[in-house]
């Protein structure tokens, strides 16, 4: 019934994200990192997939409204930015809030991601449902796979 997210699981050892994160923290990237790159798994999490005629980007942004999320594409770099605010107490004055856990990211965020070339931003579409924003970026006509007819000699 639903699309299967497990097909995104192409890594050598699934379920070891925490392990890799720990390693990444202990030994920072030895290579050259992009100056605007953020660590993997920052808020909001992003999945990117490709079909024959489009690239699809899934932004997992729970608690955001379409108005609070800003998605732009420039030179094949997709930027997702916005702000998530904490829900204020109903009765601000009289209530005291004591926190035990604060794991959910709050505040302004911005993430950039390089996408394959040859996308047509003018025909891009984005939909938002249940905290997931799906962006469909169609490929330009000349980049779509073409069937080659084999003629009998």
């Amino acid at each position: 019934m639903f699309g299967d997210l497990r097909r995104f699981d192409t890594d050598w050892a699934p379920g070891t994200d925490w392990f890799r994160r720990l390693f990444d923290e202990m030994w920072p990237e030895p290579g050259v990192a992009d100056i605007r790159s953020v660590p993997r798994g920052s808020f909001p999490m992003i999945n990117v997939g490709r079909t024959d005629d489009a690239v699809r980007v899934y932004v997992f942004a729970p608690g955001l409204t379409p108005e609070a999320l800003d998605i732009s594409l420039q030179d094949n770099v997709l930027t997702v930015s916005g702000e998530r605010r904490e829900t204020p107490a109903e009765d601000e004055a009289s209530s005291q809030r004591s926190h035990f856990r604060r794991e959910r990211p709050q505040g302004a965020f911005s993430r950039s991601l390089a996408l394959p070339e040859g996308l047509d931003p003018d025909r891009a579409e984005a939909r938002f449902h249940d905290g997931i924003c799906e962006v469909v970026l169609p490929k330009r006509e000349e980049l779509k796979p073409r069937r080659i007819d084999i003629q009998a000699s």
Partner: protein
Amino acid sequence: MKEVAKQAASREVAEQRERHREAMLPAVDIFEEDNALHLVADMPGVQRDTLTLEVNDNVLTLEGEVALAMPEGLTPLYAEVRAQRFARRFTLSHEIEVDAIQAHIDNGVLRLVLPKKETHRRRRIDIKTA
């Protein structure tokens, strides 16, 4: 016959383990306010009918299936979300009124209100002048 049953049982165990492994931990905020505990969990893609909440033996279980329709023939290029479900468990303390727990899910954010029993509410102590 016995053999078959055993095989089925071990497969079930394996499937359970598989399911457990593939669940993501949702990020949560927990705070106390107005004589209740509030739990807010990020579960993008989880809808009202794919969410299961359970309290059993003072253990609160949150489980949700990510409902995301993806087209056939989608090849992954980059992925941070690789599991199909969210799951997390918390032990509750005895002061929570289990029957009065309220839950809302909106836009991928689950909000639970766990009220405290009347006898455990915060009370203000008046200080009298001598």
